């Protein structure tokens, strides 16, 4: 009994060691290899610093480090969002699911559900990287506007903002909204 447990323990440790050597070795050589500790980007949300982890390969991280240093992703409040809106230069990106977008969104906003964006970013691929982009979701408990903004910054967009007040604040303020629309 004890002998068997000992055997299992020793062999498990050996297998564990093998996994560490092979796994880390493969990760080192693979072009999609990850850094051992995920990179992260700090963003300021309502005065509090939040670390958004970036689960991207070493190569992509090396590229985005330089970008993130130059163009931090920043929050805007309702006043700034309104200025961006009336200025007409910014594209508003709705990070919520399409059903929420369909039920009502900021006028002129484009639906870019964050859950789908993680797998397929084609919807913004053709945009000029200097385009001014403002992301938003519901507000308060909603994180995807921030996550989307950070991912856009990773992709090389240099003028990215997130409007944390989001749909709730915008619609409560009686600002222009539209219902329906295409995905």
């Amino acid at each position: 009994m004890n002998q068997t447990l000992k055997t299992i323990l020793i062999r498990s440790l050996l297998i564990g060691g093998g996994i560490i050597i092979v796994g880390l070795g493969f990760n080192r050589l693979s072009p999609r290899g990850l850094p051992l500790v995920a990179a992260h980007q700090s963003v300021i949300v309502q005065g509090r610093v939040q670390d958004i982890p970036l689960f991207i390969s070493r190569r992509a991280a090396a590229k985005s480090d330089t970008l993130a240093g130059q163009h931090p992703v920043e929050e805007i409040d309702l006043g700034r969002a309104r200025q961006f809106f009336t200025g007409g230069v910014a594209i508003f990106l709705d990070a919520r699911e399409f059903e929420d977008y369909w039920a009502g969104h900021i006028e002129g906003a484009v639906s870019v559900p964050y859950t789908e964006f993680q797998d397929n970013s084609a919807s913004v691929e053709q945009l000029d990287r200097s385009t001014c982009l403002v992301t938003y979701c519901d507000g308060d408990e909603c994180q995807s506007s921030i996550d989307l903004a950070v991912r856009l910054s990773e992709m090389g967009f240099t003028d990215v903002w997130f409007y944390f007040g989001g749909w709730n604040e915008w619609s409560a303020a009686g600002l222009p909204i539209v219902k329906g629309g295409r995905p």
Partner: protein
Amino acid sequence: MKSKTWHWLELVIRLAIGVLFIYASADKVLHPDKFAVVIYNYRVLPFELVNLVAILVPWLEIMIGVTLIFGIWLETSAFLLSALMLGFAVLIISAITRGLNIECGCFTLSESGSLVSWRRVIEDLGLMICGIFILFRHWPGRGRSVVEKTN
């Protein structure tokens, strides 16, 4: 059942699980970044540890798969299989009870309909029972492995 039937049953289970594990880990080895996001979404590990787990867990699955197929150190690989499946089941249950509607990351990545669910828990527990079955058959002192050697 005759011992020969048990023998074949065990072989079929080992091969099936071995192939399943190697298949399940391939996607994760090739897309560690996606797997890392899946792990992070369970909100159990601090993000500093997520990448390390995303790198190593698929290789543990491959190792279990290979040892099951080739019959190497079966008591150990069956033990690791059972422990891993129990761990996954607990993780999925905790995600369900916390109301997380996240991708399971069980067999493939980013396949629609592979969200955490009780079905996944039952699958994992089923695999755990298979592991215990193999472990039981290869527990020394039960005579089976001795018999096999003399065959």
